[in-house]
């Protein structure tokens, strides 16, 4: 079996349609929308299109779980025991079990919310974090950045379920959230163990994590304000072993991403206006 599988080689049936992150970034409507008040992006039952927003996010979570399963699974297989100890692979195998269960729960939640598999597009940028050839860097990308994002996403969805008095959504998200905390802890433990005598490698791994985190913050997707759909879950991140400094640094990174997105939107709007005046 092939080792080091590229994003483009992920197996999907014909229900799934893949999209690139650039498709949304270069969508000509983006600049216009950025200038409008479409309400708080944070999930809420009184937000415009609350049902559609939650369905779309739920589908995103579902495909994210598939990719997390694929990422953990690849780590079990891609490295020999010298590069990645057998105990680490056992942890990843356990994570695969969790992610498989999350996939099934997400499908059931999709049914509950009235959506279908493949109704929305899939972006595979989460799996991209699981393609690093160094197991320590990959572990940081998957178990600390990606699974850290999962903590934020599940907490946001759990809060939405709580606000809507939807016990099914709230409990399901809560259970999955508990697993994600464990996954991050596993990542942090292995990072420490594998880089105990190699501080340079540890720094490279943490730098890779920061890069992946920056991608996950893209366009203000995650943050601590109402304009961020996904809220940074500081308490659960603390439980998962992230330090307060790490949380502060991620929050700052998120603020920078939101600001960058705003500046890009303003620049794009100015370009559109200039082009309209010229035509």
């Amino acid at each position, binding site marked *: 079996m092939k080792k080091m599988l590229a994003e483009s080689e992920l197996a999907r049936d014909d229900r799934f349609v893949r999209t690139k992150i650039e498709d949304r970034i270069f*969508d000509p409507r983006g600049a216009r929308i950025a200038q409008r008040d479409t309400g708080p992006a944070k999930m809420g039952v009184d937000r415009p299109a609350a049902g559609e927003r939650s369905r779309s996010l739920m589908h995103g979570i579902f495909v994210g779980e598939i990719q997390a399963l694929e990422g953990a699974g690849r780590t079990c297989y891609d490295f020999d025991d010298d590069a990645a100890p057998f105990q680490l692979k056992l942890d990843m195998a356990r994570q695969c079990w969790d992610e498989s269960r999350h996939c099934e729960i997400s499908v059931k939640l999709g049914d509950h919310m009235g959506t279908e598999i493949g109704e929305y597009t899939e972006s595979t940028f989460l799996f991209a974090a699981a393609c690093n050839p160094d197991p320590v860097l990959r572990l940081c990308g998957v178990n600390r950045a990606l699974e850290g994002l999962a903590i934020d996403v599940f907490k946001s969805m759990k809060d939405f379920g709580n606000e809507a008095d939807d016990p099914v959504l709230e409990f399901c998200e809560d259970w999955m959230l508990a697993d994600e905390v464990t996954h991050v802890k596993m990542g942090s433990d292995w990072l420490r163990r594998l880089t105990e005598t190699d501080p340079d490698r540890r720094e490279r791994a943490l730098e890779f994590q920061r890069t992946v985190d920056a991608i996950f913050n893209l366009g203000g997707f995650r943050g601590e304000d109402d304009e961020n759909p996904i809220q940074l879950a500081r308490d659960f991140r603390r439980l998962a072993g992230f330090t307060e400094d790490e949380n502060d640094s991620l929050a700052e990174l998120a603020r920078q991403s939101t600001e960058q997105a705003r500046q890009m939107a303003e620049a794009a709007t100015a370009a559109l206006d200039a082009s309209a005046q010229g035509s």
Partner: protein
Amino acid sequence: MSSISVTPDPFTLVPYDVAEIRSLVEDAAALVEVSPGVDIALIVDEELFAPLTGHMSDVVDGRIVLWISGANFEDNRRPLHFSAEQARLDLAVMMLRAKDRLSEDFADAPPDAQLSRGERTAWDTYAAGRARRLGLPVRQPRQLYDFRLQHGFTDVADAAFTRCWETDHLTWAAVREICKETGAVDRGKSKVPVDLLRQKK
């Protein structure tokens, strides 16, 4: 013969075809049996993309005035592409509600921008159930989830949903009664206006 207008004409941000949309509006009006002679104006906000969906149906001086987010016409699987199937469905639901407004049963209903979310969802459910019986592929679980978000995840709300979904005759007074029954009427007023997506700077 009624006149049908579609705005914008042409679309500049999305490759939607005005003639195709006009034809779908005509089909929807015929399907739900809007009286001939009633003029119809459809405004599509082409700046809005998925998942920023929403639509409104009002009657102004005897004329049907429809507003819809461009996201409602967008193919979820192919961003920027028009989905005729999705448009057909949403236009039928909008047209059914507009037809309700032309009847005595909904004569007292305020404009869509003044409806509460509970009232709106109950009315939408009534329209979606009828659209399904007209042969359109409406998904009941989707409508149920939207209804529950505004009326609660309770047996009382589910029973109210079934009544809205299955009936072929509901009045504005009945919609208000349903909101009292489920407690939707007691929900605090939101700071987010229901027509926020329709408001442009």
